[in-house]
C-alpha cells in the first residue's frame, strides 16, 4: 500500500464558499456563515486546513504533518485523514473539483 493510497489517494479538498478562516497563534478560527457558527481548530487541525486550502492533496498533507510534528508517517496519515473527515462533516471543507487540483 502506498502512502497515497493510505491517505485516500490524491484526494484534494477546499474550504467551502461560506468559510473564512485565519490562523491565530497555533490554532485557527473558522467562520461558517451558513451554519452560522465559529469553530476553533487545534494546531494540527489548523495546519491540515491551511494545507488543504493551499491546494495540497491529502497525501501530501499527511507527509507534511509527519515532518512538522515529528510523528510516524502512518500516524500522521491517519491524523490527516481523520481531520479531513471531521472538517468535511463539520461543513468546513468539500472535495475540490479535479480542475482545481490539476488532476
Amino acid at each position, binding site marked *: 500500500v502506498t502512502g497515497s493510497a493510505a491517505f485516500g489517494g490524491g484526494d484534494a479538498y477546499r474550504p467551502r*464558499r*461560506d468559510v*473564512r*478562516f*485565519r490562523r*491565530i*497563534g497555533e*490554532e*485557527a*478560527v473558522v*467562520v461558517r*456563515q451558513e*451554519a*452560522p*457558527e*465559529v*469553530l*476553533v*481548530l*487545534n494546531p494540527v*487541525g489548523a495546519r491540515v486546513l491551511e494545507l488543504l486550502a493551499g491546494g495540497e492533496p491529502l497525501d501530501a498533507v499527511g507527509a507534511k504533518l509527519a515532518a512538522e510534528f515529528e510523528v510516524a508517517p502512518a500516524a500522521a496519515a491517519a491524523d490527516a485523514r481523520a481531520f479531513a473527515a*471531521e*472538517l468535511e462533516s*463539520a461543513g468546513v471543507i468539500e472535495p475540490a473539483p479535479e480542475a482545481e487540483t490539476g488532476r
Partner: protein
Amino acid sequence: VHDRVLLTGARAPAPFAASFLTRPDRFPDEPAGSPCGDLAADLLLPAGPYRVRGLDAAQLGRIARRFGGFCVPGDAPGAAHRFLPLGDGDRRVADDVAVEIGGHDRGGAPSRTAPPAGRPAPVRPCDPEPPVALDVLAAPPRSFRRSVTPGWHYSFDLDAGPERVRLAGWGFCALLERRAGGRWRAGLWVAPGDRRGFLGSFVNLLRVLAAYRLLDAGGALLHSAAVADRGAGTLFVGRSGAGKSTVARQALARGLGVLSDELAALTPAPGGAAVSALPFAGDLEPARRPAPPLPLARVLLLAQARRDALVPVSAAQAVAAAAACAPWINADRHRTGALLDNLGRLLGAVPAARLEFTRDGGFWPLLAASGGTISSERSGAAGALTEAEAAA
C-alpha cells in the same frame, strides 16, 4: 475542532426588502429623495466623526436629545459643517469634497443656516469628506410598506456587497457606500412626517454604520459589556441573554465605571487595543457623552454557570467568541476575513478567559484576585463613567 460558538447578527434574507419596500427591486435607484431639511450635526462616535446632513428641525432635535453629548448640532459652536448641498450640481461636487453653502465662518463664528433668498449660494470646498457622511432624504410615503406587526420596528434586512451595503426596514431604506480610505457615505430615505419612526430608523442605520466604519478603522463593534476601572477597560463579551446587562449593573453597584452594557467599540491603540463607549445600550441608559478610549486590559467570555470560575482561554478562542459577537460583519462574506484579521491583532496580546458566573455577583472577587485591573471593592458614586476616567 475543539470549540464551537454560534454566530450572532443579521443574515440577509431573500429577497431583500420585500417586506419593507413597495419596489424593492428598484432600490437604490428609487425612491428618489431630497434632503429633509438643511440642518446638520456631527456625531462624535469612535473612528468618526459621523456627519449627518439634510435634517429638518424635528429630526435634529430628536437626534440631539437621543445622543446627548455625542451630538454637535450644526448651529453649535465648533460644528464642522452646516449645510447639505441641495442642488444636483452641488451633489456632484459633494461626491468628492464636502461643500458649504452660504456664509459659514471657518473661525467658528455663527453664520446663516440657509442661503439668502433670491441669491445663488456660493459653493466652496471646506473640510475633506469626514470618515462617515450620512444624508437624510425624504422619500414618498408610498415607497414603504406599512408595518403590520407592532413591535417589529427594530427588524430590518441587510444586503452586503463588496463596496456597498443596503438596508431596509419599516419606514426606511438606506445605502452605505465605501469610499477610498475606509470612509463611508450613506443615504437614509425616510417618509417625511414619520416623526415616531425616524429615530428608530436612524439608530438602526447608525449601529450598522458603526460596525462597518470600525472594521475599516482596524477595529470591531462587539456585543459586550465594557467596564472601566483604574484607567483600563475590561470587555465582557457575550451574545444576547449572556448576562452583559447583569454584569454592567453589578459593576455600577460596585462603583465601577460602565462604558456599555450592549455594544462597545474596539479600536487599535499604541501597544494593543482600546475600548470606547458608544451611545447604544441594552437595559441601561446609553452613554450620554463621548470619552477617551481606555486601553483594553482583559477580555472575558461570558458563560452562565452554577459556580463562579475564571478559565483561561487561548487567543483563538477569544477571537472566535468575539467574532461570534460582531453583529452584521460576521455575516458579511466580503468582510469576515478582515474581521478575523482585526480581532487577531487586537485581542492576540490581551489576557483572555472564560468567566463562568452565577448571577449573584460572586465572581467579582475572582476578577480582583486574578490580577486584572478590576479592584475587589471600591466606594464612590456609581455612574456610567467616572469623571476621572472620562478625563483620563
